[in-house]
């Protein structure tokens, strides 16, 4: 079992900050303290409390959590297990699939943040790691931004896409979850769900969330193109075979 580490193993120390919608006063400090106590923390210290506007106060609090987590037995699906090079991935596809894998990527819904999906697809890649366009064994379609889920599914059908990459960067009010869900549902409705490797990504994505959403894999912040390529390459043979 592990706990947050302040300066001593298992001291449970955590830093919090938040705003309360009240003018600042000594009582506001005390409200902040009691609130953090209510959250279940011990040893609550309101390090800072001050007015940030006439009717709002901001607090910095340090406190100890009694909670711990069993790190050893944590099951985290990871899609980034095997590190492979571009050459290895191309070789794997050549050998096990025997043809180019067709990949389509898009930033769906009204989301116009293409930098992330471009980083995965474009030649140039990301942080020195080449994008899928650079691979011999991928045929890549980058549909760009603000692509309606309907258009993407139509395209998938038309081009017999093997792997579909959907990106969502705007997450406010759960818009990402809404769009991702719409995509899976439409694929299912069209009977295409099982014929594609379905990946989602974006800065807030985690493997767990992707699984919950019904995707084969999810890629979060800092993803390298080769990680995505490796995932597709290792999954393809199952589909084809």
């Amino acid at each position, binding site marked *: 079992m592990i706990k947050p580490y302040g300066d001593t193993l298992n001291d449970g120390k955590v830093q919090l900050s938040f705003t309360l919608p009240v003018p600042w006063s000594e009582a506001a400090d005390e409200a902040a303290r009691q609130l953090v106590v209510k959250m279940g923390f011990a040893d609550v210290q309101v390090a800072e409390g001050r007015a940030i506007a006439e009717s709002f106060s901001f607090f910095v609090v340090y406190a100890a959590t009694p909670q711990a987590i069993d790190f050893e037995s944590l099951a985290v699906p990871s899609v980034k297990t095997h590190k492979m090079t571009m050459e290895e991935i191309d070789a794997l596809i050549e050998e096990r699939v025997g043809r180019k894998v067709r990949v389509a990527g898009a930033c769906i819904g009204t989301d116009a943040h293409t930098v992330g999906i471009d980083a995965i697809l474009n030649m140039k890649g990301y942080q020195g790691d080449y994008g899928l366009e650079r691979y011999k064994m991928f045929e890549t379609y980058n549909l760009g*931004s603000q692509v309606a889920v309907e258009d993407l599914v139509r395209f998938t059908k038309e081009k017999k896409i093997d792997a579909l990459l959907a990106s969502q960067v705007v997450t406010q009010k759960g818009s990402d979850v809404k769009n991702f869900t719409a995509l899976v549902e439409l694929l299912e409705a069209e009977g295409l769900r099982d014929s594609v490797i379905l990946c989602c990504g974006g800065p807030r994505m985690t493997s767990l969330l992707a699984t919950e959403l019904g995707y084969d894999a999810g890629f979060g912040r800092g993803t390298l193109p080769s990680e995505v390529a490796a995932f597709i390459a290792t999954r393809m043979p199952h589909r084809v075979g």
Partner: protein
Amino acid sequence: MELQIDRNAVARCRKSAAAIADPVQAFIERHSTVSVERSILRLLGVDGVGPGDTPVPNMIVESLDASELPNGIAIPFGRALVQTGLEPRALGERLASGGARLAQFGDVPNEAARGAIVAAARAAFDRVLARRAERNDLMQQLPQLPPPLLYMIVASGNIYEDRTAAVAAAEAGAQIIAVIRSTGQSLLDFVPYGPTTEGFGGTYATQANFAIVREALDEASRRLGRYVMLTNYASGLCMPEIAAMAALERLDMLLNDSMYGILFRDINMKRTFVDQHFSRMLNAASGIIINTGEDNYLTTADAVEQAPAVLASQFINEELARRAGMPDRQIGLGDAYEIDPNLEDGFLFEVAQAQLARQIFPDSPLKYMPPTKHMTGDIFKGHLIDAMFNLTSVMTGQTIHLCGILTEAIHTPFLGDRALSLENARYIMRTARHFGDDVVPKPGGRIERRAADVLSECEILLERVAARGLMQSIEAGVFADVKRSPEGGRGFEGVFERAPDYWNPFEELLS
């Protein structure tokens, strides 16, 4: 700070910019758009929505016959005014409700129609000037703090939460409040109506929303003893309409840049160049400072490499704005602090670029955008990058200072985030207030060399763009690594060539 820069190179850049603007300007003068026509109606006073929430100005323009549109909306609407004797707003409602159709007033002589419109337009123009005078008075009574003017965004999606946030930000030191628009509004070929409480990543720009925040900020301005400015976004498919609304609701600034729309929203370039021109004429008259969007180039492409393109775009934007009648003091050219924080001496590069812009555009209220691209979930690190941005801004005398926010990579700002951001800017700008005045870049040093490189690369780039044409250069991906074709993108269907009799009553008033 004072850089040695090659004044002749600057002059040559301006010459190239003029050469670039010429054909664009010629194109603009031969065309109008549905949005320009709708903005004429809005200025005249037409407002409200019809069935399906379609705005009345849209309904009216759409009701025009395809063959009539090239003459503009003014005359047909003028005929209806004469015939019905209604005020423009009431006439709009009548038309929207189906109680009348423009086509039915064909009999009214052109001259009478023109006369009615001229009268209404003059009244509208006076309203715009009155709001401008109001601003001038308020700014006299309630002087702003000295620049860099701290600019803060609110973006909750709900105009009433935005209002709360705007007032809180003003109390915490903000001097300009921007209400960010909802994702995708720039792609709407109409302006939503009324107060709105649902939006993604921002709140819809509507005239009612403008008024709600303006009123709250006027109240706060009086309480705080300093005028707090309000700004919103024009760029998109409705540039001139938003410019009209902003004039009427006394906004003080507008993001107004067709290059942004083209590159980052895939809006058709012909459409938006035409829209931009008329919207800027309106902005000029209403005393609204425009903000251009060069900063965006740095969010998709490498900031070190794109610096010459940013400068080139500033020259072009300056030229286009001047041609719309804007004085330099209303042309807020954009730039941003987007160099990779891991780059050794990146700060020196930023200083070079910011100072270069300051000296080349001495009268422009430069708009300086904060780091966004390299902001991560590490809010502590992000706060520091913002601090170096704040330092650069105060050192180089930037004017409109968008405060960077430590949670940039996470969510649209919380109320507390904004306070921390303002505190950051205020602290840095206080502790280093005159630092820029007190140091000189070493002649031939890294800063000066970088500035010289950017300027000379910009010069070459402008020459190339002048030779190839702006539209073709955009097509070739010169700006921000993004390629757009002259006939591609959204809104092209709304562009039309002016017939010989085309008339826009405001063009005369505004020139």
